[in-house]
Each structure stands twice: as C-alpha cells, then as structure tokens.
C-alpha cells in the first residue's frame, strides 16, 4: 500500500462521514417537516430534494462551480467574509456531497416519520409533551431502521459519487481526490493495478455495509410495533 492510496482512502471516508453527519442533522428537521406539514410549498421542496436522483451529477456540479466561483457574488462573499472557498477545496466537496446525497437521507427518514402511527404523536400531545421532546423521546427511537438506512445509504452514496466531486473539487491529492476519481485518474494513466486496488476496496466495503444493513433491518422488522 503506497501513501497515495492510503491518503485517498482516508479522505474518501472523511468526506463520507462528515457528509453523513451533516445530512443527519439537516435531514431530521427537514424530513419531519416533509412528513407532517400540510403546507403548499411542500411539493416544491420534495421535488428539489429528489432532483439529485434524476439530474446528471455534472449538472449539479456545474452550477455549484459557477455559483461558488470567487468571480461571482456568492463565492466572493464567502471568500471575503468567511474566508471560505468552495471550489476546488475539501469544503466544496462536502457541500456538493451533502446536496447530492440529500434524497438518500431524506427519503428513508420521511418514510420512517410517516410510518409512526399518528396516535402516538397525539397521545404525546394530550400528555402535554413538547414537540421537541416528542421527537427525541418518541419518534426517533421508533424509527431506528429509517435512521440507519438513511445514514448508510448517504454514506455509501457519498463514497461512490463521481460527477459532482470531479466538477466542484477536481483531482487534488489529499484535498479533493476521492477514491472514485482516483480510479478514473489511474485508468487514464493505464495504471490498472492501482485502479483495481481502489475498485476492489470500494466494492468490498460498500458490499459489507449494505449486507450489515439488511441483516440489522431484518432484526428490526421482527420487532412488533404496537
């Protein structure tokens, strides 16, 4: 194992973990709102959340690139006020990954919220339990399979993403070069051995993660909800 390989793999997992944590924190309130709100704006938000499923990653990457470029308003604002440059940087890859993996977190959480019988929330309300306490003590503990599925899918999807990262991040070793890009990069250089090394490790890891989820979910499914 050369240091390049290790560095790229560590970076890939760093991006995936950070993205998943951010998505979980953003995803719980957003999917709560999507599951229970009767607002009219909901359909628009639902559509936007699902867009990454059908949009070519390059489209999202292209807009992010244009949007965050320091020659544009948003990009120059971020750079001058927060000293944050989101193109060709680690932070930019995180932002891109969060947007691109959004549906993979939101959809399982939203189904999880929707699957909880309404009368559990109503019972909590008649007992005077606040919305926030209801969320943490009643709703989230009863949708563990949804939370697990959301985290794992976001994590696995971030590890496997290519287009957005390439457009926004480029191919900077230790900064934005993730494993999927490294494979492309190695194949272009006709270095099939290294490409194979990356590809096999990615395959093995994602396979074991998904296998674990299915096994855990089977155990959850046997738990009877009352």
């Amino acid at each position, binding site marked *: 194992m050369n240091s390049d390989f290790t560095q790229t793999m560590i970076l890939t997992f760093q991006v995936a973990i950070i993205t998943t944590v951010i998505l979980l924190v953003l995803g719980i309130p957003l999917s709560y709102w999507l599951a229970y709100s009767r607002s009219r704006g909901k359909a628009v938000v639902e559509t936007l959340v699902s867009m990454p499923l059908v949009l070519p990653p390059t489209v999202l990457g292209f807009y992010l690139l244009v949007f965050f470029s320091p020659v544009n308003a948003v990009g120059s604002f971020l750079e001058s006020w927060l000293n944050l440059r989101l193109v060709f940087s680690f932070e930019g890859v995180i932002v891109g990954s969060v947007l691109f993996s959004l549906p993979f977190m939101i959809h399982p959480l939203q189904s999880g919220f929707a699957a909880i019988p309404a009368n559990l929330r109503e019972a909590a*309300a008649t007992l005077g339990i606040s919305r926030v306490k209801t969320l943490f003590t009643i709703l989230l503990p009863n949708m563990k399979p949804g939370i697990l599925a959301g985290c794992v899918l976001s994590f696995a999807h971030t590890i496997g993403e290519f287009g957005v990262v390439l457009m926004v991040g480029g191919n900077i070793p230790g900064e934005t070069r993730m494993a999927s890009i490294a494979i492309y990069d190695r194949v272009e250089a006709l270095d099939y051995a290294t490409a194979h090394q990356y590809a096999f490790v990615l395959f093995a890891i994602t396979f074991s993660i998904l296998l674990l989820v299915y096994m855990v979910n089977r155990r959850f499914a046997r738990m009877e909800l009352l």
Partner: protein
Amino acid sequence: MIEINVTKRLHTAEGPMDLVFSADVDQGEFITLFGPSGAGKTTLLRMLAGLTTPDKGTIIVNDQRWFDSTRRVNQPPRQRSIGMVFQDYALFPHLSVAENIGLALPRQKRRTVVNELLNVAGLKELAERKPDKLSGGQRQRVALARALALKPAILLLDEPLSALDLNMRLNLQEELLRLHRRYQPTTLLVSHDLSEVFRLSRHVFVLDKGKVTRSGSPAEVFSRSQISNKFRFTGEVVHIEPSGVVGIVHVLVGQDVVQVIASEQELATLTVGKRVLIASKAFNPLIMPLAG
C-alpha cells in the same frame, strides 16, 4: 364545570353530516356518549382534546376558554388539562410500563406519582415490561394510568374496553369506577355497550348522525316507562324456553344467566339477542325490552 357548544361538518361515507353538541357537565361527573359507529362520538372527544378543530362554537373548562371560534381562541392539546385513552391505547412501544406512565411528569415528581399509579392500577409487577409483553387488559390499565398521571381536569376514554373479552371488561369497569372515585376527574366515555353505560355513568348522551337524540340518566334514557322499582337489572336475552302458557327467558346479566318467567304477551316482544330490563315491583317481576 365544562361548557361545550360545538358544531362541525363531517364527511362520512353517507355524505356530509353536521355534528352538533351542546352540554354543561359538572366537575367530577361521569358521562357516556352512546351511539352507533359514525355518529360523531370520537370526533367529539377529539374536539375536547384539541386534536380536531370544531367549525364553530365554544369549549370552556373551569372558566378557561379552550376554544372559541368568535374570539379565534384554540388552545393546542398540549396546553389543555386532559388525559386521553385511545381505542388502541397508543402506548409508546419502546418504553416500559413505568416509563410510559411517567414520561410526561416533571422529574422531581416522577417516581412518587408513577409508584402510586402502579400500585393503584395493579401494575407493580409489570413496571419494567414493554407494551408488547402485556395482555390487552394490562395495556388498557397502563393507558389509563398514563392518562391519569398529570391529574387532568378531563379524562377522555374512547371505547377503551371494546377490544377486551367480557370478563376482563367487567373487571376493568370496576377498576375504572374505583379510579374515578379516587381521582375524581370529569370523565367522558365513548361506548356502544349498554351494560357499560349503565354500570359506569350517571348521565348519558345518545348520539345519532351527529345529533343528540336523547340524554339523561341511563335508566331514564333506555327504559320507555318510568316505574318505581324494587330492583332492576339490564341484560341480554340468550335463550327462550316455551313452557305451557308461559315461557322461561334466560337473560345474561353481567356474567350470570338469570331465568325469568314471562307471560305470552311479554314473550311476543322478546327475541334472542334483545337487550332487556328486568325489574321487580314487590314480588311480581316485570320483563320488558329496552329501547336503543
């Protein structure tokens, strides 16, 4: 004192229906709402709880305005002093019996109140069990204890006993009466079981298609004639045995089958399955069908 005066348009399978209800209920009363399914009984409870919003009207509880459509007042369920037992109990599946009962209580009071309720409801041994390890009657007791934990002004019971077998139902009716005597919450019970109405409540509202058709004490409401009785029971005819000019009517009263002799004229009004009132005036028992 609870003053209810509400209307709401409901969309039922048979088309739109207006639910109209108006009543004054004294503190500590035990009221039943009786009627066929779809009459609006559950909706009425939900409006009191704040889970469903009436179209028009007022709900005033102990001088607090919970709902007033003219003043645009509508307190959310969280701010209303209510305890509600749902038809399917709605216990929190991941919490133990004790945690279910104590979840809403402030930390410093939790242990004493939970222990008291566990004792009163006979749940001491089950405190650490999860709801899926409980029988129907036990779940029912937990739901009741949970609803009483915050000492609510109003206790709302939505057909809490309908899923249980007769034996369990009779036990829990006793329990319910005991708990009501002890904590004295103003109680509204939705029921479509006549014997339950007779045993539990002092006042019954009969609802049909959204309207109150009759109200009063159960005996007033369900027996057509007013007789001064030495004793009276209600039950269900389970068997009629002709015997010469008279018939022997077997009536299920509570858990006992009582045999009553009925004249030919009386027999003509009776069929198996009919709910009846058995009353005795001096030594001459009367038997007659119950309306409703």
